[in-house]
């Protein structure tokens, strides 16, 4: 798994996002088969689901949790009287015949590849929240997709999918919240130039000053000013998205910062900013470390070059893992009620969930802080001037 991330990140950081998308195609998927996938926790839900399908009454916490932390094409809000209530989101595809846009309601809440959506003369299925060109006829499980009989990989082709998914919609909501929050705070300063901050500005200013002084100034050094807006944006982008993930109902609850794509973009930004601002001293220490025997220098260069990539990679994994773990814990605790099928567990479940939620509240800020702090640290190292 680790190697796979490395490859992904190398590919992405080299600027070819195609690689990551291509890997989706080769990704393993069981199509109506439950064989040989239980060993992978993350994948298990694919297989388990098919197994549990005959008995709908059995609650499958793994499936529920995986469904909640994964992205989806519709925004599921709740089930009511055996019916799903949710907000359909636009599906945007770049197909062989150009751009196709249709509502996710055409899938009728289906993500098992059972329902074909027709748009622009083309047919698509939603199989585990991935859009494929639908097969002409369903297989023996009623799924409009074909799988390789040996590897169980889906052989159907995927169009380029730039749909407004649940995470994207949540991202937009967070972006709007951030924009409104900070532009309104900025208005205060436009009106009262030298007054002590009040209201929204009073709330925002200590945070902004904290990022500027304790994160940027302390770690980047004398040329910190240029990077303060970026660090502020990273910090509040992560924090607000983390917080939105903690809100258990619409429009929160999406696992945005617990999605590897989001953290990858943020880590990639950190990677680019760090290395494009790298000074002579920085590259010198990576490629030809001074003060070492010549024989060791190339060895260290290899380690250091790997280090260039592992630093942002660790940023990507840390945020993703922390936030996803938080979501999984909360969902697991709530699942206890349904696993034991008794209401008497609910006090325990609710209290534990409350405890974890409060902890997660801390984690939201902490992870935003750590991500920003480490970005600033890496930047500081890259910007360091010759001093000996």
């Amino acid at each position, binding site marked *: 798994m680790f190697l796979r991330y490395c490859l992904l990140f190398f590919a992405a950081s080299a600027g070819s996002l195609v690689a990551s998308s291509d890997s989706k195609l080769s990704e393993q998927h069981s199509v109506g088969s439950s064989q040989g996938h239980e060993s992978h926790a993350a994948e298990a839900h694919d297989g388990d689901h098919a197994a549990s399908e005959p008995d709908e009454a059995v609650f499958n916490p793994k499936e529920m949790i995986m469904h909640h932390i994964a992205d989806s094409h519709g925004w599921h809000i709740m089930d009511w009287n055996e019916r799903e209530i949710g907000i359909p989101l636009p599906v945007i595809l770049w197909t062989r015949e150009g751009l196709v846009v249709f509502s996710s309601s055409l899938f009728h809440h289906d993500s098992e590849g059972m329902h074909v959506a027709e748009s622009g003369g083309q047919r698509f299925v939603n199989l585990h929240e991935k859009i494929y060109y639908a097969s002409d006829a369903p297989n023996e499980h009623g799924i409009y997709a074909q799988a390789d009989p040996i590897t169980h990989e889906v052989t159907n082709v995927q169009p380029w999918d730039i749909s407004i998914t649940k995470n994207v919609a949540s991202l937009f909501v967070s972006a709007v919240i951030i924009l409104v929050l900070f532009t309104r705070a900025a208005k205060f300063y436009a009106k009262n130039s030298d007054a002590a901050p009040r209201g929204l500005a009073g709330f925002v200013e200590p945070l902004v000053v904290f990022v500027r002084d304790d994160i940027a100034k302390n770690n980047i050094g004398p040329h910190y000013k240029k990077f303060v807006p970026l660090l502020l944006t990273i910090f509040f982008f992560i924090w607000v998205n983390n917080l939105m993930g903690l809100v258990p109902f619409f429009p929160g609850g999406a696992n945005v910062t617990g999605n590897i794509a989001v953290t990858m973009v943020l880590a990639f*930004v950190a990677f680019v900013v760090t290395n494009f601002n790298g000074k002579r001293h920085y590259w010198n220490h990576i490629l030809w470390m001074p003060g070492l025997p010549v024989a060791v220098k190339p060895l260290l260069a290899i380690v250091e070059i790997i280090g260039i990539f592992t630093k942002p990679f660790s940023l990507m994994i840390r945020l993703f893992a922390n936030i996803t773990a938080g979501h999984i814990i909360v969902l697991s605790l709530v699942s206890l009620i349904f696993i034991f099928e008794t209401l008497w567990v609910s006090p325990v479940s609710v209290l534990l969930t409350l405890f974890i939620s409060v902890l997660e509240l801390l984690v939201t800020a902490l992870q935003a802080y750590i991500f920003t702090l480490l970005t600033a640290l890496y930047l500081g190292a890259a910007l360091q001037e010759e001093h000996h």
Partner: protein
Amino acid sequence: MGIVTPGFGLIFWTTLTFFLLLFLLAKFAWKPILQAVQDREESINAALKAAESAKSEVAALQNSSEQLLKEAREAREAMLKEARSMRDKTIADAKEAASEEASKVLELARIQIDNEKKAAMAEVKNQVAQLAIDMSERILRAELKDAQAQRALVDRAMLDLKSSN
């Protein structure tokens, strides 16, 4: 592998959203906020510096006012001293002048008394001489009624003259 495989769509939208957000925030939020904060910090620093200098100015002023007060006190002291000495001198002068005047008056009075006394003495002498003359005239007249007696007198007088020479 579902949750650890980055989806292309989300990468696309996250990148777009993040950079749009970065641009908009940098322009409409961070720039004014950071500028305002910096301006305020500068103005606070300036105010602190001004307060510091005002404080030292006040201290200097206080110092100089104390100096002035001290000088004024000294001046008052000196003036008082001068006044006191002048008063003493005036009193002394006055006393001296008065005693001089008094002694002068006394002297004058004595001289006058002396003069009066002399005059009185002279008067008394005159009176006595007149009286003596008158008495002697009467006596002479009484004694010199006869020629003999006159002679006897001349002789006696002659004798006196002789004895007195």
